[in-house]
């Protein structure tokens, strides 16, 4: 079976708005994500992670290299690739239920079927009872659950997530990580998950891509062989199959960060 998501020798340059100088953000990145695989991307700040995600999402056009989803070259945004942004991406003037059903509304799904599917995802992300609330009435963690449900509900082929839990407190973050793992088991989605947090990458990922400093290159790939069902924080902290790859990722990331400080 061919990989769901294939990035081949992708490079990206930004023209700097003020100096006109060229910012080399991505350099010859090649990677692939299998069907149903949960991949994590870590790397120092400014290494081009968001750039990669925007290109995959089709929000940023690419000029060098190729990006394929389900065998088709990416040429703009589309509902086959769902994105969960860091924060503030759900519409403040729509209720939770209407935000979650927005993708289906766009796809022209009839109201009765839509409501049924929305309810399914409201329940899946634990927002039952909040269907008719507006985003400003929700906590940060609940807003992100809503954003996650909106993306899932549209049933994309791949899910792209850009540090979706970075803006919530540590306790909520742990809960959300366990919930996302549960959702990954339930939906078997192909996921590319960007994070700064090494523990998060190792906890969630089947495989972790480590990026070098800018210009971002794929520096290493680390496999994490822990069955999804066993990924619960209190059991995992002393589990070698988790701690070994986590330490390896940490070492690789540190090399980049310490180089940076010299």
């Amino acid at each position, binding site marked *: 079976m061919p990989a769901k998501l294939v990035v081949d020798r992708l490079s990206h340059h930004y023209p700097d708005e003020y100096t006109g100088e060229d910012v080399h953000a991505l350099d010859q990145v090649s990677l692939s994500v299998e069907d149903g695989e949960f991949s994590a991307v870590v790397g120092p700040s400014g290494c081009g992670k968001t750039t990669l995600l925007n290109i995959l999402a089709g929000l940023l056009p690419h000029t060098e290299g190729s990006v394929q989803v389900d065998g088709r070259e990416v040429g703009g*945004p589309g*509902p086959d690739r*769902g994105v969960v*942004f860091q924060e503030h991406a759900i519409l403040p003037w729509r209720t939770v239920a209407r935000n979650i059903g927005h993708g289906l509304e766009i796809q022209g799904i009839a109201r009765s079927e839509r409501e049924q599917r929305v309810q399914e995802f409201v329940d899946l992300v634990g927002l039952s009872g909040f269907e008719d609330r507006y985003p400003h009435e929700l906590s940060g963690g609940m807003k992100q659950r809503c954003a996650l449900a909106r993306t899932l509900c549209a049933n994309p082929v791949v899910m792209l997530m850009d540090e979706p839990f970075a803006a919530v407190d540590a306790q909520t973050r742990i809960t959300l990580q366990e919930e996302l793992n549960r959702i990954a088991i339930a939906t078997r989605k192909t996921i590319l998950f960007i994070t700064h947090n090494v523990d998060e990458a190792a906890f969630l990922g089947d495989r972790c891509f480590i990026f070098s400093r800018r210009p971002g290159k794929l520096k290493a790939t680390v496999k994490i062989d822990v069955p999804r069902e066993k990924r619960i924080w209190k059991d995992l902290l002393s589990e070698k199959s988790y701690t070994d790859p986590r330490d390896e990722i940490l070492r690789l990331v540190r090399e980049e960060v310490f180089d940076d400080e010299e």
Partner: protein
Amino acid sequence: MSFIKGGGIELVLLIVGILALWSVLSQNIPNPSRYLPSPVSVVLSSYDVIWKGLLPNYIGQTLWRLVIGSAIGLLLGIPFGIALGLNRTVSDMFYPIMNFFQSISGIAILPIIVVWWGNSEKTVFVVILYTCFFPIAFNVLTGVRSTPMILVNALRTLGASRLRIVKDVLIPSAMPHIATGARLGIGYAWRAVIAGEMLAGRRGLGWMIFTAQDADLTAQVILGMVMIGVIWIMIDRFALRPIEADTIQRWGLVQR
């Protein structure tokens, strides 16, 4: 209403105070009926115009012009502002131009409009339309431009068409600006309609003030001025402000 709940008594006292000061002033100047008639004589003079049915008639005329003029202004200004806001280059180009025209008040363009269309009903409407169009379109444009890019991108990744993005993101996001633009625009239009009526009206409150001054009926001039202020406060308090507050609140954009 908030002014009844809190500060109501203070407000009444303040108005009484102003009226008293006004009375004292008018009793201590020579020829008050020409320079500053007392509140009592203003009320008495109003008896005459109200009784003849002129005042309600004039107010009706002025309001009708305001309603029609600003309705057309909204109908043209809102889509125009949205259309300009869709494209960055176009909106960057138009922004200073809109700002320029917005700054030239209705009174300042009145002379040239009179040159073009004379003292006609058309002149009054053109001035109202001009005056409310630019602040409305300008605010709508600002609202569309200040829509967070991430919301637009989120909808694009859900597969939304351009039209859908306009309908589901840009318009709701610009809604508070649209409401503010409408309130400002109609406020300017209210001033413009009075000015327009003075120069080219033949009817209406502005016309009443103008003719009263000609006939040396200062009490009626003051009556007209007071009516302009009172009517505006009512329009603002009971129509425009509630709409503005309601939109902002309903769309969940209040910061708590």
